[in-house]
């Protein structure tokens, strides 16, 4: 067998990218830094307790369940009582930025893949690759490109978390009943109208399941990102483990779990369709009342239909 120096080739490619695409990486880094800072300012703008109230209201609006909302709010208060509030908000900012970026790339790619078998043929193995390759393998190059700090963690998180957005968007669109799509076409809709008015709305549960998956995967990367100076709960856990502070690592881990439960329940509820309004939910008035017009008694047009084939 001839010896293939795949490792060497890979290293060459990465070195070349670092040397020649530096401007691009700097741009991405500064953009990510700004996004992270801006998002962090948003979620950490208030003191912990008022912010918990805000989160509770969001959870109530999304899930429409009082009991669950109370449990989630208590969980967040526990995080604050452990003194990990700002680290948790830092991790939340990372998760939000990574999720939005993964969705911005993943959903359009999923739509494209749903319609083009060629794109699907390229994207599917790429997604398999992204999901199976160990995270640390590409964490290292990202550090080379973006340096130590929160940015490489976010970039690695995007790579790690984006695949479900592509997969479930693609799947959701392809699972839409073909006859329903045909019905829209039969009434003269063009492909954009079919996509916007039929395929995307009907694929929404699947797409939202993808969003939920993306969020959960992004959160699972938080600790890993701590290894490269990502800050937040990741740093707490990594430092605690490295210095054998078992108590601190338990606290950091618990905060991750509480954040995970909150994000999971809220994002899953947002994707739920046909959710029944509980009794205490304010009733909405019927959207539009249109008076019933008399039946149209337009006379018959006079087409003639001839087929030869």
């Amino acid at each position, binding site marked *: 067998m001839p010896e293939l120096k795949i490792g060497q080739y890979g290293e060459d490619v990465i070195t070349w990218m670092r040397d020649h695409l530096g401007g691009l990486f700097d741009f991405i880094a500064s953009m990510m830094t700004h996004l992270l800072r801006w998002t962090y300012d948003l979620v950490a703008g208030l003191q912990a307790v008022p912010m918990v109230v805000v989160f509770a209201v969001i959870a109530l609006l999304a899930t429409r369940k009082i009991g669950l909302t109370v449990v989630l709010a208590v969980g967040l208060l526990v995080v604050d009582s452990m003194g990990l509030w700002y680290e948790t908000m830092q991790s939340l900012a990372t998760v939000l930025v990574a999720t939005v970026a993964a969705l911005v790339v993943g959903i359009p790619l999923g739509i494209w893949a749903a319609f083009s078998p060629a794109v699907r043929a390229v994207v599917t193995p790429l997604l398999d690759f992204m999901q199976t390759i160990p995270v640390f393998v590409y964490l290292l190059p990202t550090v080379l490109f973006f340096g130590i700090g929160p940015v490489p963690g976010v970039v690695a998180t995007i790579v790690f978390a984006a695949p479900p957005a592509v997969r479930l968007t693609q799947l959701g669109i392809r699972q839409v009943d073909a*006859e*329903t799509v045909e*019905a829209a076409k*039969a009434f*003269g809709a063009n492909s954009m109208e079919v996509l916007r008015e039929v395929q995307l709305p009907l694929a929404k549960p699947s797409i939202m399941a993808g969003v939920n998956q993306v969020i959960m995967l992004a959160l699972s990367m938080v600790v890993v990102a701590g290894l490269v100076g990502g800050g937040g709960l990741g740093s707490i856990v990594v430092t605690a483990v490295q210095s054998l502070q078992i108590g601190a690592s338990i606290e950091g881990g618990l905060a991750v779990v509480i954040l995970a439960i909150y994000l999971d329940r809220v994002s899953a509820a947002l994707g739920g369709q046909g959710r029944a309004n509980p009794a205490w939910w304010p009733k909405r008035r019927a959207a539009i009342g249109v008076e019933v017009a008399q039946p*149209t008694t337009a006379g*018959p047009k006079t087409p003639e239909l001839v087929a030869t084939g």
Partner: protein
Amino acid sequence: MKAYGLSGRAATTALAAPDPAAAVAEAGGFLGANDVSFQISTGEMFVVMGLSGSGKSTVLRMINRLNDPSAGQMLIDGEDIVTVSDARLREIRNTKIGMVFQHFSLFPHRSVRDNAAYGLKVRGVGRSQRYERADAALERVGLGGRGGKFPHELSGGMRQRVGLARALAVDPPILLMDEPFSALDPLIRRDMQDLLIQLQAEDRRTTIFVTHDLNEAMRIGDRVMVMRDGRVVQVGPGVEIVANPADDYVSEFVSDVDRARVLTAQDLLRPPLLTFAVGENPATALTRLADNEANGAFVVDADDRLLGVVTDTNLSGAIARGRSDLADVVTKDYHAVQPDSIIGDFMHLAGRQVVPVTVVDADGRLTGVVPRAAILSTLSSVREESHA
């Protein structure tokens, strides 16, 4: 013509062959519709009938090009829809053709009103006008006031009413219906057929209706086209197809039909065996009865109007009493029906009198008879075939 599973050029080559079906099959495709030509006139209810795989849906879907024909023309008002641009195709679909689907294919995320208004929304009609027309269409199909519901809140029959309203709301000159009622249970199906018949009586809309149910075809269709293996086997009014099936396939198909509900007196009409003019002598009449081995005969006047019936018994009585005119001895011992009477409505009366069931036209003229044997042979051939 429609060849499935072949690229454009391969299809063209195969379809040009002397036997297109074989050529397409050899090239690895499947010929869905072969040499199907038909002409539908304005306002006609045209039923395409066949078993599954016979090409009936293929033909329907080529009309609005949900399936692209591989070869041939499809002229709507003289415009060949096969060759029009995509933009024009969408315009034709939107303005000229409404479609109703087998599994309803409603938009589950839209209200009933929004479903019905969909074609108008695509057309760019403003919201209030769109809803007004959608509500009018819903009213016509018996769903007035249900516009705010969602499809999943309705029963199957109601959903298909929404499907029908969606097609009617754009007021299309052509309506395509792809086995619209076959997913419904029999009672609902009958209601929907009644609704369609009623709407058709009001609109006289050109309708192409695909079904595998011959009873349905007979009930609603002005003309029926029977298809098999992508070919047209027979086209004609339903009664004609039942009475004169073109081949064994069609006759097997029509064996399921309840002929008693389809055929009319006219279809089984025979000339009367024997008629007497009103002035005839009873003695001569009795002799003629004997010569014809009959027990009774009709008596008509100079204009062929039916006066009544004489039998051997009352003729011999008349002779004994010395009567010289048949007009004095006629009885009303017959049962008269109109030419368009349904056989099922009078067949129980056949054989009760000496003479067969009598068919008279609106002016009272004797047009013929329906012998009991003719009814029995028509109905029994159904049973034989359906048991086979």
